[in-house]
């Protein structure tokens, strides 16, 4: 990395990368260490989990902790609740946001700017402003402690509309015009021509929504207090109060609850990171 040879970066890129790798690896270890500790502890006996000095690896893996999770929590029911909530929010949001996003990007209609500003203002306001009233709404409709209550408000998103509007704006305008000349109405243009082209944007929004929904805490915590109707996130948070010290079982539960989104992330890493980058750098 000397200044003497001007063309270093172009000619000898492999030189001196060792130092960079060392720093990045140390950082990676710090990032991964809590995950390692989670898995390691999940396979220890209770006594081993609190031993001083600690053991790095479990002396003999206790797989029973993973079955005990299902005995301490209604884990199966909570898992299912979380899946239903996540799927409903994700599918609903991607579909409705794609519809609204397209209309804002490509169609002209009276009140477009006013409505769009109303959407944007929702985006900028902290969500706590909605919470008390949303809770009362669910109460009034008798939806407390239902999976419907978990999913419902999260289906509609100003952020998603904004994100997909950006994707539609980047598609060539000639496509709309050509389809219109072929006799398609705006709905058909959206459905047949635009949606297939906006696939990447929709996938990015879908993955972001899935992860946010899966991990969401405050809303599920507020609407459902029956353990059978909770999400994993809320379930885990109440579990720690009751079984505060049974760390191995808690860690097994945490690990099982985080696995689906980690798998989703690994599978769709590229789409997700693109989605973040394009929604992020909007200035």
């Amino acid at each position, binding site marked *: *990395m000397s200044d003497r040879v*001007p063309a270093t*970066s*172009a000619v000898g*890129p492999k030189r001196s*990368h060792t130092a*960079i790798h060392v720093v990045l690896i140390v950082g*990676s270890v710090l*990032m*991964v260490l*809590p*995950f390692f500790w989670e898995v390691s*502890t999940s396979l220890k006996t209770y006594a081993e*989990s609190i031993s001083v000095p*600690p053991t790095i690896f479990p002396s003999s893996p206790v797989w029973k902790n993973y079955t005990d999770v299902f005995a301490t929590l209604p884990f199966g029911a909570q898992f299912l609740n979380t899946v239903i909530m996540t799927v409903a929010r994700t599918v609903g949001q991607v579909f409705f946001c794609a*519809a*609204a996003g*397209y*209309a804002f990007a490509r*169609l*002209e*209609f009276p009140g477009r700017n006013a*409505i769009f500003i109303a*959407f944007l203002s929702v985006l900028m*306001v902290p969500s706590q*402003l*909605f*919470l*008390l*009233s*949303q809770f009362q*709404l669910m109460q009034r409709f008798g939806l407390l402690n239902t999976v419907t209550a978990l999913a419902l408000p999260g289906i*509609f998103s100003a952020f998603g509309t904004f994100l997909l509007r950006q994707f539609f*704006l*980047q598609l060539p*305008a000639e496509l709309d*015009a050509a389809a219109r000349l072929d006799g398609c109405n*705006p*709905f058909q243009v*959206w459905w047949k021509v635009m949606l297939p082209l906006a696939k990447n944007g929709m996938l990015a929004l879908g993955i972001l929504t899935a992860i946010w929904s899966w*991990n969401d805490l*405050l809303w599920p915590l507020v609407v459902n207090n029956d353990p059978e109707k909770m999400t*994993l996130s809320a379930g*885990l*948070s109440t579990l720690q109060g009751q079984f505060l010290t049974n760390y191995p079982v*808690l*860690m097994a539960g*945490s690990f099982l*609850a*985080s696995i689906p989104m*980690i798998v*989703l992330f*690994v599978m769709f*890493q590229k789409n997700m*990171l693109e989605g973040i*980058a394009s929604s*992020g*750098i*909007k*200035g």
Partner: protein
Amino acid sequence: MTSQLVPPVEQGQRRPTPLPPRGTKRRSLRHGDRYWAYLLILPTAVGLTVFSIWPAIQTFYFSFTKWGTFGGHEWTGLDNYAQVFHDPELLRSLWNTVIFSVMTLLGIPLSIGLAALLNTKGLRGVGVYRALYFLPVVTMPAAIALVWKLIYNGDTGILNQFLAVFGVDGPHWLSDPATAIYAVGVVSIWSSLGYNMVLFLAGMQSIPGEFYEAASIDGAGPWRQFFRITMPLLTPTTFFVTVITVINALQAFDLVYLMVGKASPAIEESQTVVYLFYAKGILQGDGGYAAAIAFVLLALILLITAFQFRVQKRWVHYE
């Protein structure tokens, strides 16, 4: 060349709405468009009205009321807002939120540094590093909080056992009022590092390579290039990340709820504004006061964000 610095999204945003072609057909096409447009917008518009816009209006009304123990509420005018400014609990929560926000901001230089390392030309394994650093972002906060509680545990946690090797007697991090909010802040930095890093990396990758080539020819080393080219051209991203980080940090709830919790002796010294909002509005049924707290938070967010936009002219370079 400089236009490449403007992210593609910006260009899209400014592009005028394309109109259907041909003068004569235009009017009839546009007229029919509006019904389709309303139909496409309808679900989200109705949903946002019912679940966001109307609730916000209602909450504003709530903030002028006092809630009874058995339901119902009475108009009390500005009482709640008057109480806000004399409530030591709320003032303390504001202070905790500021500490938490400042700590979270400390993660920004770290993520810029990491992104700069990942942006090294010809570096191998970038995808693997990026995925590892991003892992906490996709992991459930409830799970993250449990692991860190285990690590922070005063008696048996590995942190204190590690410190003991150096003869340091670590505190009970999460139940000690003096350390709890800082311990939570560290976890917040850890879990948002990867997200910010991805944004900075995208920003750095949009800087044209010619700038660096020209600088190399002029004899500028990597450090000089970083401070003279990368940092100035990255300022729009840095500004954006700072604004988003502050807005999110001001609304911090999950980690405080999960790691400290209502039963902890340290909760008063570490509860954030949103935690207090939750405690008042949901746990104690004092919805009127909670609503006022929510609007104080809104005012705070708007003020700080507006301030940031004002000051940006001094340090953000849009080419």
